[in-house]
């Protein structure tokens, strides 16, 4: 695990962000937050949430995952950002990051802008050229949190479900 990089927002809401590794212990810790995330934003709530943690751990070991966390000063996990980092299959030689998950507990959302800035800075520091973020239509935070940071809309994502 890398050392935490403190980001003070205010005396009352002090918290810190860090780059961590995906481990079995982390997966166990993050599950309650993932359930909140799922309940808030999943499009098909009747599809059971069964995250493939083993796959995430393997991808992390292979160097393809970046996990950024937001914690209170006492260590409680209050948010996470998960990105897949690799050369884009369309533009080989260009290291790119695609957001897989981004979540902050509703009670702590005042610092989401800073958390995204932190994630972007960490990714930029390792040579990522392009960052992709996907924003659910049911919680469209893009105009508040992404476009002010230089993000542009690229695509609309549609899904069709069978069975």
């Amino acid at each position, binding site marked *: 695990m890398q050392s935490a990089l403190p980001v003070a927002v205010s005396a009352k809401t002090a918290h810190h962000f860090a780059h961590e590794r995906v481990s079995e212990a982390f997966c166990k810790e993050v599950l309650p937050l993932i359930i909140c995330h799922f309940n808030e934003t999943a499009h098909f709530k009747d599809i059971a949430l069964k995250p493939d943690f083993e796959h995430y751990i393997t991808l992390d070991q292979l160097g393809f995952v970046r996990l950024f966390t937001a914690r209170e000063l006492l260590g409680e996990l209050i948010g996470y950002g998960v990105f897949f980092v690799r050369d884009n299959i*369309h533009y080989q030689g260009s290291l790119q990051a695609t957001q897989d998950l981004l979540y902050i507990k509703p009670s702590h959302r005042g610092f989401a802008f800073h958390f995204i800035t932190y994630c972007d800075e960490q990714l930029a520091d390792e040579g990522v050229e392009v*960052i992709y973020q996907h924003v659910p239509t049911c919680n469209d935070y893009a105009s508040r949190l992404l476009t002010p940071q230089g993000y542009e809309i690229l695509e609309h994502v549609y899904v*069709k479900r069978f069975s």
Partner: protein
Amino acid sequence: MIHFSEERLSTVWEEAVPLMKEHFEETGDFGIEEFNPDKVQYLETDKLNLSKTFTARTDTDTLVGYSIFFIFPHHHSRERICAVQDALFLQKKHRGIAGVRFISFTDLVLEALGASLIFRPVSTKCDYSRTLSRMNYEHVQNGFMRRI
């Protein structure tokens, strides 16, 4: 008349490259100037059956369109097999009803292959959202990018 098939990417790659360039010129990502697909990675996923390639050809067998999907268990609900569209292109003069038929064809084949969810990202530069909405697709996300 345009007809559709499933083909191996390895057999159509060279034929598809000029169309890929047309595709990139029309919808290539903002600020990225060089089209440089990773042929090795594409062919490896094809070989491992982790992707499916569909083609659109004229009666004279000329390639006028293609669609590529990556197939994998969903990271968040691993019992669900997902098909995620990597690319969909049909030359402009063949668009319209042939485009709708091409999407329907790929949906049918992917469903038959066991996909329970099909994801299609639609570029804002060539927005066929209304077509997908009429084909029982639901708008679930918007994609944003930032060039560092």
